[in-house]
Each structure stands twice: as structure tokens, then as C-alpha cells.
């Protein structure tokens, strides 16, 4: 009997000993809003896991990291619900790839932990990340996440349509600079779109062909008319009534002129992509990642020969040409086991190294997050990444990380929808937006 006991004891000891030596860790990565081209959002974590395991091995520790990735969610809503419910249940994935707008509510709820608790922001590669992008991944002075990619939302021109209404090649080449200088405005957009429709170059409703659903893109048009999203002094959200009304009016004018469809909102995305990528629309706006879609699935083989891109033009004297960047961020969720948080933090750090991030940037046609990426040949050799970074990213700003920004954005969009579809006049829509926001945000809103 005592022998048996000894055997048990030895087995137990050996088991404990091995457990201490070899650490098995499973890191779950959930990526929202991702398709095939975005696979490096989690594959970079897998590559990083391999590197980290090797580093541990050199130090004589055995670390086995299993990365389990999940990307198939119905949409952003389902993804966000899945993450928050999992966090409530204590089973949140260690790493989440999501919009930076989630930082405010999720940090307040205690779902996420700051990366700065684990990582030295003064050390490479984090000290090489563009400061404005790092800023976007922070909230309340705390670095909650790391930017996973950068993007920007440009205005597009179909070159043949522009030539058809009288632009020369030189004029088209000069467009981005004219837009940036505020010499080509949204009024010119309407005029050119009108010409394109009148001359039969594009069908009615296809002169100016905007995004089909709510998104940061529409905040850009608010900024074009001088609107400000957040007051830098107090951190409160701002409703600039005049800017909002002029922005609504712009879309109403576009509908009345017949250059934009009245029922454009809700158009199927696949239809939209295929139309803009192949010259069915004269002017439109989109995102830098559209490059991959246009040249890939939609089969546009000559992007630079057919499409010109610029900032979103200014709307009036008060506004400016602008673009919004909405980087996705790597966030770490609160875990039972501190070791998981630590390993997850190391992984997102490694995944942010220039070479690894460039894999994602080029494959998905996003922009890089750090300066050194221009020294990675894959990145610098890519014409789109190179030109878009230079033309757009420098002036890009982001939507504010604010607890109530979601309400603000939804209400602004509902107002635009009402004006666009003719249910309300722009003035009525703005009044409704003001009433709604004042009631819901209270002291957190400044009305101008």
C-alpha cells in the first residue's frame, strides 16, 4: 500500500513539475468586420505567438501558445454583442480587434485592461507608431489599445467621367491639391455630378454616389461645413446646428438635382462596390481599403488609370477639406489569469512590428501604423499604400472616444436619413436632432 502511495505521490510531483515547466496558454482572438483580405489581423498574432515561444525557449521556459481565431460574426452589431456578453460571463477572448470607439464604453465597464499596464510604450516597436494613431487608441489619458491598422476615407473621381465633362489629364492630376487647398468644394462636386448626369455619362442618380449606410464618412461632411465633433477644451460633444443643416442640405440638393438617388440609403453593398469600381458612378467616396476590393473582386485592373482620389472637399469657408481615419485597435480583455493578459499584450506588441503589420496593410489595402514601415519593401513598393499615406493620413482626424458618441452618431445619421429621403426638411431634421441629443446627452453636449 505504501508503495502505491509513493507511486501516486511521485506521479503527482512529476505532473506538477512538468506543469511548472511547460505552460500551455490559449489565446482567443476575435476580429470584427473582417473578411478574407483581413486575415493578418489574427494571423499576425499566430506569427507573433511563434516568435514569443522561441524567445521563451531561449530563456529555457517552455510556453505553448494556441491561438484560436474567430472572425465570422453576422456584422458589427453581433460582434459587439458577442464580446460584451462574453465579457459579462467572464469568457471574453483575450484579444479583440475592434473599432476604437468601443474603448470608452468597454473601459468604463471594466471589460478591457490597458495595454500600458503590460507594455513599455517608450520601447520599440511602440515608440515608432504614429502618435496620432496611438492617441486614437487611448481614452482619458490611458493607452487602452494599439492601433491595428490605419485607414482613411477618400473622395473618388472616375477619370473618364471627369474627362467627359471637360477636365484635361492635367486638371485631374491637380484635383487632389485643389481639394486640399479648398479651391474645389462640395458645390463643385454637385456641379460636376450634374454635368455628368446631364451629358449622359452616368445614369441619373449616379452623379454622386455616397456610402449606403451609417459610418464615420458622414461625420466628414459635417466637418466639411465647419462642424466640430468634440470640444477640445471640455471634452464634450458638439452639435454645430448651422454646419449640420448645411450638410443635410448638401445631400438634399444632390437628390433634388437628380445626381444622387433618393432611396440610395440601404443599397446592397455588393451592388455598390461593383458599380463604383467599374465606372457606373462619376463621383463617390469610400475608404482606402476599397482599393483591394476594386482591384480584386470587382476586377478593375487599372485603378490609377481610371480613378483619382483626394480628401473630402470642403463645403464652405468655415469648413475644411478633411478625412477621418477609423483605425481598428487591438484590445486586451480582463482575464482571470493575469498570465494570459501578459502573453496577449506581448503578442499584440510583436504583431505591431513593421514587417508583420505590413503584411496586413498590403494584403488588405490598409495603411501602416508606424514610420518604419516605409523601410519595409513590401510596403514602400506598394503604390497605393505609398500615395494614400502621403495624401491622406497626414491630415486625418478621428471620431472622439466618448461614452455617448454612439448616440450622437446614430442621431446625426437618422436626421440625415430623414432629410435625404424627404421626410423632413433639413431645418426640421436638425431641430429634431437637437431635441433628441439635448434630452439624451444633457450636460455632455454643447449646442452651437
Amino acid at each position: 500500500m505504501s508503495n502505491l502511495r509513493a507511486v501516486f505521490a511521485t506521479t503527482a510531483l512529476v505532473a506538477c513539475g512538468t506543469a511548472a515547466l511547460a505552460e500551455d496558454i490559449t489565446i482567443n482572438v476575435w476580429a470584427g468586420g473582417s473578411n478574407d483580405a483581413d486575415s493578418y489581423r489574427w494571423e499576425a498574432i499566430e506569427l507573433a505567438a511563434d516568435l514569443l515561444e522561441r524567445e521563451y525557449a531561449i530563456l529555457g521556459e517552455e510556453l505553448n501558445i494556441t491561438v484560436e481565431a474567430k472572425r465570422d460574426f453576422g456584422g458589427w452589431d453581433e460582434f459587439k454583442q458577442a464580446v460584451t456578453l462574453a465579457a459579462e460571463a467572464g469568457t471574453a477572448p483575450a484579444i479583440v480587434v475592434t473599432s476604437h470607439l468601443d474603448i470608452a464604453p468597454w473601459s468604463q465597464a471594466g471589460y478591457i485592461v490597458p495595454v500600458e499596464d503590460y507594455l513599455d510604450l517608450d520601447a520599440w516597436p511602440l515608440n515608432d507608431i504614429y502618435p496620432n494613431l496611438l492617441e486614437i487608441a487611448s481614452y482619458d489619458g490611458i493607452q487602452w489599445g494599439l492601433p491595428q491598422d490605419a485607414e482613411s476615407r477618400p473622395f473618388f473621381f472616375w477619370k473618364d467621367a471627369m474627362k467627359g465633362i471637360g477636365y484635361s489629364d492635367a486638371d485631374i492630376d491637380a484635383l487632389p491639391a485643389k481639394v486640399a487647398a479648398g479651391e474645389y468644394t462640395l458645390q463643385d462636386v454637385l456641379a460636376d455630378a450634374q454635368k455628368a448626369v446631364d451629358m449622359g455619362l452616368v445614369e441619373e442618380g449616379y452623379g454622386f454616389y455616397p456610402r449606403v449606410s451609417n459610418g464615420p464618412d458622414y461625420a466628414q461632411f459635417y466637418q466639411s461645413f465647419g462642424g466640430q465633433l468634440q470640444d477640445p477644451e471640455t471634452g464634450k460633444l458638439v452639435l454645430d446646428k448651422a454646419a449640420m443643416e448645411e450638410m443635410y442640405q448638401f445631400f438634399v440638393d444632390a437628390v433634388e438635382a437628380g445626381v444622387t438617388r433618393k432611396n440610395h440609403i440601404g443599397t446592397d453593398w455588393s451592388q455598390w462596390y461593383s458599380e463604383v469600381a467599374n465606372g457606373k458612378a462619376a463621383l463617390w467616396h469610400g475608404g482606402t481599403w476599397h482599393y483591394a476590393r476594386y482591384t480584386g473582386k470587382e476586377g478593375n485592373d487599372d485603378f490609377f488609370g481610371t480613378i483619382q482620389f483626394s480628401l473630402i472637399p470642403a463645403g464652405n469657408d468655415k469648413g475644411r477639406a478633411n478625412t477621418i481615419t477609423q483605425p481598428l485597435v487591438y484590445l486586451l480583455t480582463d482575464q482571470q489569469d493575469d498570465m494570459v493578459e501578459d502573453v496577449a499584450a506581448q503578442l499584440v506588441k510583436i504583431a505591431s512590428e513593421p514587417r508583420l503589420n505590413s503584411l496586413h496593410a498590403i494584403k488588405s489595402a490598409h495603411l501602416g501604423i508606424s514610420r518604419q514601415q516605409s523601410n519595409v519593401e513590401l510596403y514602400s513598393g506598394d503604390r497605393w499604400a505609398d500615395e494614400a499615406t502621403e495624401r491622406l493620413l497626414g491630415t486625418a482626424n478621428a471620431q472622439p472616444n466618448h461614452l455617448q458618441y454612439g448616440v450622437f452618431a446614430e442621431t446625426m445619421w437618422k436626421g440625415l436619413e430623414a432629410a435625404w429621403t424627404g421626410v423632413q426638411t433639413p431645418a426640421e431634421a436638425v431641430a429634431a436632432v437637437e431635441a433628441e441629443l439635448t434630452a439624451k446627452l444633457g450636460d455632455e453636449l454643447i449646442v452651437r
Partner: protein
Amino acid sequence: MRNVNWLGLAFLSPALVMVTLFFLLPVVLTGFFAFTNMSTATGVTGGEYLLNSASLRRLQNEGLPQEVLAKLEAGGYRVDAAGLAALAEATTPATAQELEQLHGAAEFSDRRDMERALKDLLDNRIRRTRDRKEAAELFKRSILNERFATEAAFRAALSETGTRTAYAEQITTAAYTGWVWTTKNVELLFALPSTLRYAANTTLYVTLTLAFNVGFGLFLAITTFYLPKGQGAAFRAIWFLPRILPPVLYVLMWRWFTWDTGFLATVTGYFGISPKNWMLDTSYHAWTVVVLINGFVGASMGMIIFSSAIRAIPTSMLHASEVDGASRWQQVRWIILPQLAWPILFITCYQTLSLLTSFEYILLATDGGPGRATEVWSLAAYHTALNNYGGNLEYGLGAAFALVLVVIGIAASLIYFRLFNFKRLITKPLIEG
């Protein structure tokens, strides 16, 4: 007798459990959530205590004196004796000594500067990032941006900052990150101009769809009744399709039918009408489509119920009326309709309640558009509670929306019972009595 009762209860118990879990509990929870400020940011399971710039802003709005705010904001990181002693214990006394020589009595406003100061250590370098971060925490003297799991811990830390106890209550309340009880949701429902519109939309939706459901269901039941048996069954089977099709597929077909490149636009195009979106062109179009989509689904159900009720009418009555020379219309008016009172009541009650809370077809078809024209109350509840671009879902406000539906549902049931003289309908039949 007693045994029989117990047995009955035992047989009922699975149903009771289901009713409690899936019907009663959601209602109770809705009532409960409706009086909280629950959102993504507050979480569901409870909160902690955290002072950050958002809570300070709230305190400022509430009129907390500037000097108290300043005190809460101040602090940061300080290389003081207490911190050095703690550092000596955590690492080595030599480390603490070196730091004191380098940065003794220094103050840093943020954590990165404190970490940089620790990096200045040369002889006693702290190499691992994690260790350095832990060391930095030993010098933290501000309670800003620190989460406290319990109220007691927060209050203790608050008193260490030297804040007067008179303000402690107010500050603690503002620092709580979890949900609290509030009646603000209900007040908001009355204050928001949009809710009036949703209410009007809902009334319109329920009235029109209900009328269509019952009317068209009756029409189908009666007309198929007079068809030869096989043909009637075939027609009923066809009209039953909308109900058995998956909603997504059913609505997709409607979209193909009405979209500006769809069937309707193509056919009307032959007559020179410029193509337009027949679903979303104006709010009238949207309403027509919404009522039809829901109406066909509801009508098929009414048709089945009414058909079987008509079949239950003794055929001898119909034959006798024919002998008396009654026309088809007279048969319908004087024989069939009077005997359908009970099924009509049932369908009306059932459909009102289900229409009040059903929004899936609208969500899939118009999503409340154009410009919120078809946004009904239950859809607004869904959008508020489960759909937010910025990720901060307002569970509390959404539940308040839903609670109104619960109240209206109960009230409507009571009114219907009274209106159709429910009591008389459920009395024992006189013949069998």
C-alpha cells in the same frame, strides 16, 4: 380529489417552467431593466469605483467646488519616503537608495514619466517591463484612473487624498461605474419628440395590418370554402407559403420584387414609368409594403383558423338555407360570419398583441426607413437596446420602450375580452349542459 390535483399540477409543471422561464421572466426583467441606467458602459453584473475625467466632468457639472476637483486631479506619482520604503521591500534597499539619489521628492504627472525615472537606474536596473510597472505603481499618489472593487476601498483611498467627508458621498456616487436605479428612462420617453412619432407609427401599423390580416384571411377562407375541395386546398397551401418561408428569404423576395432594378420597376418600365424603388420611394410606398409583407403572413394564419371553423359548421344548415333560396352572400352574412365570432376574436386578440411586438419583417425590409417613417415602437426598442454604432448599447432605455409594450399589451387584452364579451363565449354550451 387532492391526489388528482397534484397529478394535474405535475402534468402542468413542464409547461409552468417554460412559461416562467420564457414568458414571465423576460417581462419581469424588462420591468427591472427599465428602471436602471444600464448600458454597455455600466455592464450588467455590477460596477466598481473609478474616478476619471468623465466622472470629474460630471462632478463639475454638479457644482463640486473647484478646489475639491483640483485635489482629486492632483497627485500623480511622487517619489516619497513611503514609496521608497515599499520599493526597498519589493526589490532591494540599494535600488530604493539609488532612486532616491536620482529622483528623490520628484513628482510626475503621468505614469510614463515615472517609468522613465525608474529607467534611469543604472546600478540596480529593473530589467523586466512588468517589474518596472509594478515598481512605478508603488509611487502612485492619485486615485484618478484607478479601479476600486469595493466602495470601502474607494472611500479609504478618497480620504487619503484629504477630500472633505462632506463631498465623499457625492464623489463616490459619481465614481460608481455600475448601473443605478433611475426613472430617467421613463421621463425620456415623454421628453423625446421621436417617441410620439414611434407611437403614431405603431398605431398605424397595427391598425392597418390587423384589418388586412383579418379581412383578407376571412376572404380567403370563405372563397376557398366554396371551391371544390382539391382546388380549395391547393389555394390555401399557396397562401400559406409566406408563413412557412424563412422571414429573411420572404423579405428578400419582396426586395427583388420592389427594388429599383427589380420586377415591379422592370414591368412598369415597359409602360414608360421611370424605375424607382417601390419599397422606399416615399413613406406611403414603405407603409404599403410593410403592411402587405406582414399582412400576407398574418392572413395565412387567419385563413387556416377561419377555414377550419367554417368546416365545423354543420353542412345541414347550409343545405337547408339553399333549399330556402339563400344566395351565397346571404349564407356568408347570416350563417358563416355569426359562427366565426369566436375565431375572429381569437385572431384579432392574438394578432394585435403579436403585431405590437413584431418588428422582424420591418427590420429586414425597410429597417424603419425612409427616415424613420416606418420605425415602430418595438423596432425602436431593438435599435436602442441592441444597435449602436458607437458600441454603447442602452439596455435601460430600450427596456423602457419594451415595458410600454407590455403595459399596452395587457391593457389591450383586457379591452378585447370586454368588447367581445369573452365571458359569454367561454360559458358551457347550453345543449350539453
